[in-house]
């Protein structure tokens, strides 16, 4: 297997009034060529920070990558000069964001915003770039792309904007697309359209996708492999079928159980009690221990490691690891 992106031991810290917060704490993951990796987790668990760390788009003054490596096609992006990172960013790794409403510049025409990266990275002439922008719009299924290219963001609906974002990301045919909750702000019917589009593009362009979401349904439909995050760490990693069928980590199990099912019956939801811990004040042992129904004394004292329990299935749980060994 060829690893396109390999993140290892990534730690990202924030300086806040309350002290230094480690928002991402030792994340290791890899995205292979052509696959879709999902990152799932509750709000604030560090999904976005992980993706911004990869893109090196963190707010500079208050955050820093404290440790780790981010290898893209074998080269550590953290060691590269800024210029090279820029050459990768938007060109070979592209990103789309959660908020299609605010992620487009309100004062520039759609066409220009799309052609911008083409001109910058592919050194196309203005005319070529403009044509390419229209072509991209057509590709993402926007009707009358010539006309839309001349419009502004506020004239488009949310779904259209997200298509534009995708077009913008795809303009340089990136190897990797990082999608940070690309459909959370959209209605289900529109979400279905966008997800279809992404799948289609992946097949035709052969790119890899790093899909960040908190919606397990989206994961089930889109991803090949899944990483579950909890409080800045990965707690479980597996291919999608395994994860849904045989989840190991109590958090994953709880998450799946708490979902109201559209298909099938549910009289009462199983909920995970308590709430996500404050990143400034994490439990000393397993971070999930306070909410874990199965937690034993050990869980409060020891910090579990992420270990591969079965081939391709890792889990950060002392109990599971015990069971296996």
């Amino acid at each position: 297997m060829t690893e396109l992106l390999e993140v290892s031991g990534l730690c990202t810290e924030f300086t806040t009034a309350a002290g230094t917060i480690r928002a991402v704490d030792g994340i290791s993951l890899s995205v292979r060529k052509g696959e879709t990796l999902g990152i799932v987790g509750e709000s604030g668990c560090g999904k976005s920070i992980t993706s911004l760390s990869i893109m090196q788009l963190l707010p500079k003054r208050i955050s820093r990558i404290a440790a780790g490596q981010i290898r893209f096609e074998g080269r550590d992006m953290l060691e590269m000069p800024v210029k090279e990172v820029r050459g990768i960013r938007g060109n070979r790794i592209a990103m789309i964001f959660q908020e299609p409403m605010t992620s487009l510049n309100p004062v520039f025409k759609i066409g220009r915003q799309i052609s911008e990266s083409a001109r910058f990275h592919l050194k196309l002439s203005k005319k070529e770039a403009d044509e390419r922008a229209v072509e991209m719009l057509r590709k993402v299924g926007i009707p009358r792309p010539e006309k839309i290219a001349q419009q502004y963001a506020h004239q488009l609906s949310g779904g259209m904007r997200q298509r534009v974002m995708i077009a913008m990301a795809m303009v340089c045919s990136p190897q990797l697309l990082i999608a940070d909750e690309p459909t959370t702000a959209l209605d289900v019917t529109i979400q279905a359209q966008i997800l279809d589009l992404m799948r289609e593009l992946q097949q035709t362009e052969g790119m890899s996708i790093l899909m960040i979401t908190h919606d397990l349904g989206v994961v089930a439909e889109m991803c090949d492999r899944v990483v579950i995050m909890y409080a800045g760490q990965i707690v479980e990693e597996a291919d999608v079928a395994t994860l849904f069928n045989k989840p190991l980590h109590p958090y994953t199990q709880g998450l799946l159980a708490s979902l109201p099912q559209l298909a099938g019956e549910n009289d009462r939801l199983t909920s995970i009690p308590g709430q996500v811990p404050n990143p400034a004040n994490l439990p000393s042992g397993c971070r999930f221990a306070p909410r874990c129904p199965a937690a034993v004394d050990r869980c409060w004292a020891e910090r579990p490691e992420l270990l591969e329990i079965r081939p391709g299935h890792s889990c950060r749980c002392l109990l599971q690891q015990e069971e296996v060994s």
Partner: protein
Amino acid sequence: MIPALLGIIVITFILSRVLPGDPAIMLAGEQAPEETVNKIRQDMGLDKPLYIQFFSYFGQLFQGNIGYAYHTGHSVASDLATRFPATLELTLASILIAILVAIPVGIIAATRKESILDHISRVFSLIGACVPIFWLGLMFIYIFYSILGWAPAPMGRISGDLNPPSHITGLYVLDSILSGDLIALKSSIVHLVLPAICLSTGTMAIVARMTRSSMLEVVDQDFVRTARAKGLKESAVIYKHALVNALIPTLTVLGLQFGYLMGGAVITETIFSWPGIGGYVTDSILAADYAPIQAFTLVSAILYCGINLAVDLIYGLIDPRIRYE
């Protein structure tokens, strides 16, 4: 616009009429006996009830007649025609200075937040906002004219032994450029510099602060992150994507500054013997000369509305969201 205008007219009228002091006495001179004063009062229509005075004022206004200035002996229209260009030139020059200095300063401060440059520019803009114009003006004259001899005599808009450039716009600098009169150009610029700087300090300070804070705000926004994610150079991100958006609030502030500048002109003109409308209105207020007060407030209120209308139009140019609404 029309109700606002009506409001402005009514308020102006009331304001000028509640001013104590009798223009008839001023006109007659202090040695004039009562009969003379009464005669003048009748001629001026001041013996009529207030509401009749208002209607006649309003009627006159409707016919484009803004009255007669007793303290100068000219029709207000002709007074304004001779003095207004001077004030306009002064005001425009200070706006220009404010824009040319403050916007770059604000941008630099914002992009290098918390750096020495930022601190210096913030301190300067804070000081600019709190130095009284009248004090600054007096100091300027003392230092630059009296001691150093760099500045020309604080006496009008152009050196006394020169003829003003031929009247095209009434703005000496512009007129001398248009008529190719280099000597007049130099003289009118050196006469303009001190009063314009003096008047612009407050505006400069406010615009710099505004630019800085709106820049900081914009730099935080999603679409700027999108631009960065495209791999664009930082300068392109700041100057292409962020700046235009940041200029919108700055523009609002500039529009609102107009009223302040007109007020500031009153003082600046007094100190620098600038033959503008500011000194004129001060005299009018002190002399209880109604017509010029009414005309001045009316004109500046209309101008204020006009300028803010223009600001709105410029918004439209910058911000398509407004254009299409």
